[in-house]
């Protein structure tokens, strides 16, 4: 209690133990302060104390700065609820704006703009205009901050004035003002890149001196400007978007420069496809992505040579890279990531490596940004594994890492593994497998499988290791479910399965060993997988065919005690073996088959019964009743084909081309894997024409939109448009999560492999498509959040998820 003396503790604990109203009317500033502190405490606790508004507003005229500050805090919290009373304060603000003390001027402006009333908007605009020319830097900075507040009110007629003020402030000589002006630009007129054109060089020069928060925004704006003005850089990662004819030759040329790429041969074809996907994702808006994935054969997205510039000769590009490179050493991880993003997209491939060390540095130095940075590195590392390959040690896992971080590191490690680093990576993996965190151990085992897919040379060693692991896990078989040991075993078997698939003949013995251990493995899904391998590779090599009779007898013997999954797999496997069998074993197989079908027909599970009936019918004429020739009888050869078609179709499945939507590095959408409202892809290369100064595309959209808003405002004066907007945001999110679950119901089976994220993407894209249909969505790169006007949203909500939605989902899946 001693330590709390002299603080405001008593005010927080019992804010209303005295009558607040008389205190507010007191003639002493100290009593008024106390009253306001009590009100603030009530606000902090989440209570509504707006009924004191009239009394509080009177105190705005006070000369005490502390009292002023407290009044402002209260006023901003409640102004929207009491617009009429708030108007009473305007005169005081007007007076304060002329105060000789810059702090008073700045506060008055901040509060006046912050109370967000349409009626006073013109007054605020005049004030902002005046403050934008104030001699004090801090006041000008506050003027820049006031612009987005005004823009939030959607005043169509003042749009151009706002943009003009943004232009003035961007031209300011103080870095502090420029930073705030950049933020204002990003929210008021992000498409009016001609404003940037005037000051481009100056902005680049001032960039290192701007405050960190302003830097983050300004870097993004400059990047967009350069792309819209000059196009992409020929030598950069984005070059894969150049027309396909040129593409190959281009690649050869760049390979010569880029010795790192040559070192790792495994990062060949699939790699450039991935790069193409990624860079395409940066430029494409969600609507384009959607239309592309729904009509697979539409005109491919390609850019012609004119939309590329040379990073070596273009001055603007060079300046941008030059001025952002010191920022890679910033102490703020957000600045580092933003600067890294510019270099990733714009720098010639051989210079991209400059971003590696800074990114790895922030992994160590700021713990909180670790996860976000890793998410971004993951994409970089997949697109250009050679970049991070020499730094694999940085991704080794500490026991203090959270599970999400561990999983990301594993994924990165398995995509950057090379022939030279794989041995040390595997050594690490072996340690991880013995980690007490079994979920992590299982993820490690899965990562081993992925590594081997990329480096087939390692297959033998891996399989041996995995086999030992399965045997070891058997020791703990009884505890399986309790300690998630089962997960490790399942992942190990999946990995072994995928390794065998690559080259079955050389792994024959592995299959034999697995089959031998079948009796001691108790996890149903693992048993099912091994039994599947028996059927799949029944004719492989010499040992397996000889084992078949014993194995099938064993399966028949333990059939009744199996789990559902395993029972189904036993039936299929026996059928497969039977269809491919010739000669000596045939009669045994038939006996086993008949025995199994009889058992299965009486099974308690209908799936098993159905499958048994089906198989019985299918094979009856050939195997069960040998004599009579029925109408549906099939020759053995035909039967073989039929069985193959039914059970071995997996072989035909091609690995589908990667078809995710990629978001710009460092963006929120990239973290949550769906298009967040307000996400903007990069502008179309060279879309900013030199004579396109008067009215760029973006302005028109926003003007139109602002018109929409003022329209709604006419009906109900009390309903604030900004409220409307937040409501629509809310609605969109809601229905979006709703349709997510309905989507799941629709396509549970067909889409098992697809992760949730993919689904999220498609659904969020549908929103756009629906908007397209409604004709509200006029042009591609427009602010999604702002474009969600009420009308579009409502009609979209009505359609969801009934009529249009399932159709859309189907369309989007090739």
């Amino acid at each position, binding site marked *: 209690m001693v330590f709390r003396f*002299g*603080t405001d*503790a008593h*005010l*927080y604990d019992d804010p209303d133990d005295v009558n607040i109203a008389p205190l507010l009317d007191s003639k002493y500033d100290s009593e008024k*302060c106390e009253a306001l*502190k009590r009100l*603030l405490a009530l*606000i902090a606790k*989440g209570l509504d104390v707006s009924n004191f508004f009239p009394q509080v507003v009177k105190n705005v005229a006070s000369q005490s*700065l*502390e009292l002023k500050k407290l009044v402002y*805090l209260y006023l901003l919290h409640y102004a929207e609820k009491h617009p009429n009373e708030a108007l009473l304060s305007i005169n005081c603000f007007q007076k304060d704006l002329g105060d000789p*003390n810059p*702090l008073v001027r700045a506060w008055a402006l*901040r509060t006046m703009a912050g109370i967000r009333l349409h009626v006073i908007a013109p007054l605020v605009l005049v004030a902002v205009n005046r403050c934008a020319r104030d001699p*004090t830097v*801090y006041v000008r900075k506050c003027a820049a*901050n006031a612009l*987005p*507040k005004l823009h939030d009110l959607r005043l169509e007629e003042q749009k151009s004035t706002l943009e003009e003020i943004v232009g003035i402030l961007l031209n300011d000589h103080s870095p502090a003002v420029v930073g705030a002006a950049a933020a204002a630009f990003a929210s008021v007129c992000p498409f009016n890149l001609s404003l940037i054109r005037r000051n481009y060089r100056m902005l680049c020069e001032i960039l290192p001196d701007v*405050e*960190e928060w302003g830097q983050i925004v300004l870097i*993004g704006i400059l990047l967009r400007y350069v792309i819209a003005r000059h196009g992409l850089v020929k030598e950069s990662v984005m070059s894969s978007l150049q027309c396909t004819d040129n593409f190959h030759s281009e690649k050869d040329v760049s390979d010569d420069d880029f010795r790192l790429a040559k070192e790792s041969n495994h990062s060949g074809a699939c790699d450039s496809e991935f790069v193409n996907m990624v860079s395409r994702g940066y430029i494409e808006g969600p609507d384009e992505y959607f239309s592309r994935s729904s009509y697979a054969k539409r005109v491919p997205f390609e850019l012609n040579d004119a939309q590329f510039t040379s990073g070596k000769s273009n001055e603007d590009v060079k300046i941008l890279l030059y001025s952002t490179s010191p920022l890679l050493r910033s*102490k*703020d*991880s*957000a600045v580092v990531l*933003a600067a890294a993003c510019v270099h990733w997209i714009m720098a010639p491939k051989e210079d991209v490596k400059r971003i590696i060390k*800074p990114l*790895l*540095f922030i992994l160590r*130095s*700021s713990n*909180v*940004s670790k996860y976000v940075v890793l998410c971004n590195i993951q994409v970089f590392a997949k697109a250009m594994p050679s970049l991070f390959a020499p730094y694999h040690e940085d991704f*080794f896992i*500490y*026991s*203090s890492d959270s599970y999400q971080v561990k999983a990301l590191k594993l994924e990165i490690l398995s995509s950057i593994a090379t022939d030279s680093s794989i041995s040390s990576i595997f*050594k690490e993996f*072996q*340690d991880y497998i*013995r*980690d*007490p965190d079994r979920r992590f151990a299982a993820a490690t085992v899965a990562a081993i499988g992925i590594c081997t897919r990329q480096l087939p040379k390692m297959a033998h060693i891996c399989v041996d290791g995995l086999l030992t692991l399965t045997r070891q896990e058997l*020791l*703990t078989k009884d505890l399986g479910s309790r*300690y998630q040991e089962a997960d490790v075993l399942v992942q190990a078997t999946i990995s072994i399965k995928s390794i065998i698939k690559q080259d079955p003949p050389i792994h024959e013995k592995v299959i034999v060993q697995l089959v031998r251990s079948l009796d001691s493995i108790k996890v149903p899904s693992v048993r099912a997988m091994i039994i599947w391998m028996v059927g799949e590779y029944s004719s492989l090599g010499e040992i397996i065919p000889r084992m078949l009779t014993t194995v099938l007898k064993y399966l028949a013997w333990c059939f009744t005690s199996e789990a559902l999954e395993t029972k189904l797999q036993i039936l299929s496997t026996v059928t497969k073996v039977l269809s491919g069998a010739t000669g000596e074993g045939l009669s045994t197989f038939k006996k086993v088959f008949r025995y199994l079908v009889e058992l299965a027909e009486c099974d308690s599970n209908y799936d098993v019964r159905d499958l048994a009936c089906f198989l019985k019918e299918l094979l009856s004429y050939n195997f069960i009743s040998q004599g009579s020739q029925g109408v549906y009888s099939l020759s053995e050869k035909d039967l073989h084909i039929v069985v193959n078609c039914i059970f071995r179709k997996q072989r035909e499945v091609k690995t589908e081309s990667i078809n995710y939507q990629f978001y710009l590095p460092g963006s*929120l959408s990239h*973290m*949550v894997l769906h298009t967040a*409202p307000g996400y903007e892809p990069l502008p179309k290369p060279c879309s900013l024409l030199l004579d396109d100064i008067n009215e760029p595309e973006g302005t028109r959209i926003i003007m139109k939109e602002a018109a929409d808003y003022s329209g709604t405002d006419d009906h109900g004066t009390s309903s*604030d448009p900004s*409220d409307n907007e*937040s409501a629509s945001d*809310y609605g969109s*999110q*809601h229905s979006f999560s709703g349709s997510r679950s309905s989507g799941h119901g629709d396509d549970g089976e067909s889409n098992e492999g697809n992760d949730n994220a993919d689904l999220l993407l498609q659904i969020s894209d549908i929103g756009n498509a629906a908007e397209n249909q409604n004709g509200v969505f006029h042009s591609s790169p427009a602010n999604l*959040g702002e474009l969600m006007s009420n009308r579009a949203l409502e009609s979209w909500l009505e359609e969801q998820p009934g009529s249009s939605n399932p159709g859309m989902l189907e369309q989007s899946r090739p």
Partner: protein
Amino acid sequence: MLQCIFLLSDSGEVMLEKQLTGHRVDRSICDWFWHHVISQGDSFKSQPVIASPTHYLFQVVREGITFLACTQVEMPPLMGIEFLCRVSDVLSDYLGGLNEDVIKDNFVIVYELLDEMIDNGFPLTTEANILREMIAPPNIVSKVLSVVTGNSSNVSDTLPGATGSSIPWRAAEPKYANNEVYVDLVEEMDAVINRDGALVKCEVYGEVRVNSHLSGLPDLTLSFANPSILDDVRFHPCVRFRPWESHQVLSFVPPDGEFKLMSYRIKKLKSTPLYVKPQLTSDAGKCRVNVLVGIRNDPGKTIDSITLEFQLPPCILSADLNSNHGTVNILGNKICSWTIGRIPKDKTPSLSGTLLLETELERLHVFPTFRVGFRIMGVALSGLQIDKLDLKTAPSRLYKGFRALTRAGEFEVRS
């Protein structure tokens, strides 16, 4: 941009809310958040970015206090996270630490600070030096004064000069009778020793901390004797970029008081000062543990505060562990911690005992990782050395001081 900031106590109580824009965020989002924290536990708390049904949330947890920021639109997630970190740094600096009570007791200051730090969802003034001049931190004198006089204004009447300066980190020209500047090298050693006892990686993450009390507008240069060993560096904004690029010299106008001038990494070190040798042998439902700790490479100064910590695997029923030096504690969450302190001259500290496994288990199949802690005063283990510190137009009396300290960072020994 950010729409709202909430401060939550470690029991999930909303201590404070600050609405930042006209798009009001209802408190119910905190209920949603806390509900998930309870149902998903730590894995939810370690997610910095969360997509809730209505908002995107950024969270930073410091000393049990959760700083939660909400937005509905696209913005750089790291900007939200870094800002929350800055808020927590400033608050902890103002209030002398962070906990539930201290925030509630000083809620007015917290509100005033938040209002100054962020405007309409975009950071406004985050420089600690300027904030200190605008809003006075609570101290004993002001507390006494407020009790005696009843007047407790902590809001400054004038705008700090640095807001308009091109070096916003430096407050208006201070005057000191004694001009002093101290430079500390604080290093953390990260090391991983794998199950075979091999050193997988060993590197140092270090910071150069400066405490400067210099009158006027001092211009300092700091150089290292061996800058080539630095693998990568990051700077305080006051460091000029070009001199570093050309000569590896730090040239800067320092903020007043204590600050972090630069941080660096030095990789691929060859050895660690300590060795830790764990041995676990298990059979017949038991596991014998034996851990030896000793000095491998004498750094020339005393190694103290040596600790060893490991998580017992979940399949262990009970543990009986003893040491010949220091104390062993097994905490409630099955974390075993062994406090060694300094290594005695006459013996090698060792921890030994048996772990009893669950009944069905014959042998242990998962093995714990040992986390090592230590501290060495007076030595920078990376070997980085400061060459000299110069002050342009040096005042007549200038005290310069250098110190170094190394402690364990992520120092792990696997068994």
